[in-house]
């Protein structure tokens, strides 16, 4: 582990130097395995947060209440520690940067991590494919990558970014706080008009179910909607 930085009060980004990393696709994940002195092991999957920087990869870990692995990674792991990593894994929830179709990204909470990997890959490759991110968070303080997304969105040709607040919104926000609604996504759809967007939805299961159903109701085709549901803990 070569770096650790707090993104929010509960989310940390870890940098890991992996021998002979041959790169990965935006949206892929890794399995992280921890081993206790008595041999007990725990493995969890974490989305890669950014394109690899040579042999250094990044994951962003949301600390879960009672999370056996997430709490270790955010609170105890230190620079210099060795972790076991397997990957890259997952070839489905990935953005093909040669595909010119506009992209609609819908994230609930830390579901933004694999989507940020896509946004960063687009930025790094200087690709102009229209991207729109809708990120549902509880409060402004829960905006993972908030500053970077604000900066990217302000650039010419940058992605457009909308935050939706479920509990507390900033004073400038006109949308009342609340869960994802149909018209939240209608607006997102209109921003990628002109061609059928590829949609990526990531977040807790209930959020993904609602978002996918809203997109279907808005006329998106099921075969253009890819989902990643946080299944386990």
């Amino acid at each position: 582990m070569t770096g650790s930085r707090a993104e929010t009060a509960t989310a940390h980004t870890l940098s890991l130097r992996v021998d002979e990393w041959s790169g990965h696709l935006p949206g892929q994940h890794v399995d992280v395995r921890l081993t206790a002195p008595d041999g007990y092991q725990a493995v969890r999957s974490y989305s890669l947060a950014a394109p690899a920087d040579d042999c250094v990869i990044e994951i962003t870990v949301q600390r879960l209440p009672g999370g056996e692995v997430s709490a270790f990674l955010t609170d105890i792991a230190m620079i210099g520690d060795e972790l076991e990593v397997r990957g890259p894994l997952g070839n489905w929830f990935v953005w093909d940067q040669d595909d010119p179709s506009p992209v609609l990204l819908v994230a609930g909470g830390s579901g933004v991590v694999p989507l940020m990997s896509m946004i960063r890959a687009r930025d790094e490759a200087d690709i102009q494919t229209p991207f729109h991110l809708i990120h549902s968070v509880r409060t402004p303080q829960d905006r993972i990558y908030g500053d970077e997304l604000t900066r990217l969105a302000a650039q010419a040709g940058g992605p457009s970014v909308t935050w939706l607040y479920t509990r507390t919104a900033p004073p400038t926000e006109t949308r009342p706080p609340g869960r994802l609604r149909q018209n939240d996504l209608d607006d997102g759809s209109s921003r990628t008009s002109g061609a059928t967007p590829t949609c990526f939805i990531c977040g807790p299961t209930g959020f993904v179910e609602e978002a996918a159903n809203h997109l279907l109701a808005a006329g998106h085709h099921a075969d253009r909607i890819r989902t990643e549901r946080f299944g386990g803990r």
Partner: protein
Amino acid sequence: MVHVTRGFTGRHPATDDRLPPGQYLTDDFPVLSAGPTPAIRRDEWTFSVRDGDQALRSWTWDEFTALPAEDITVDIHCVTRWSRLDTTWRGVAIDDLLADVDTAAEYVLARSYGGYTTNLPLEDLLDGKAWIAYEHDGDDLPAEHGGPARLLVPHLYLWKSAKWIKSLDLVDDDDPGFWESLGYHDYGDPWREQRYQGD
């Protein structure tokens, strides 16, 4: 080689000798699938056993649910590492569905509404090892868990238990299904941790 992680002691959650390696127990029923949940109306649902392009047998919902059904209690194991013990289902044994079918095929490609597929050896669906299930926990199978009906093959990782099942295609060649062509293991035995290609 096992590498001990500095500072990690682990919570050692309750285990059970019915828990395959690398799995943890949960009481939740997480949902994992690749796209939106298909909404299939029962009056539109049909299920077929096919040989190539030809349907050997086909059932409507009413016909299917009139078949002799079994109550099933099994442990299930997801490749994302959660397991549930003693889950209860009701459905029709594949043995019964294939009872009159005479085939030389050794493999099956399960096809789902929504386009999902998964491949299995035929023998893994026979001898009381697999069902088409339409009830879970005493209720109709919810759409997000594969309703109206799903394949249930509890001795393999759960991605083999295709949700929203539409047909079982008897095939001579073992061509990979959806996840199998995306890097997952062809067979998927939880006790041998066959998660990804090469395991």
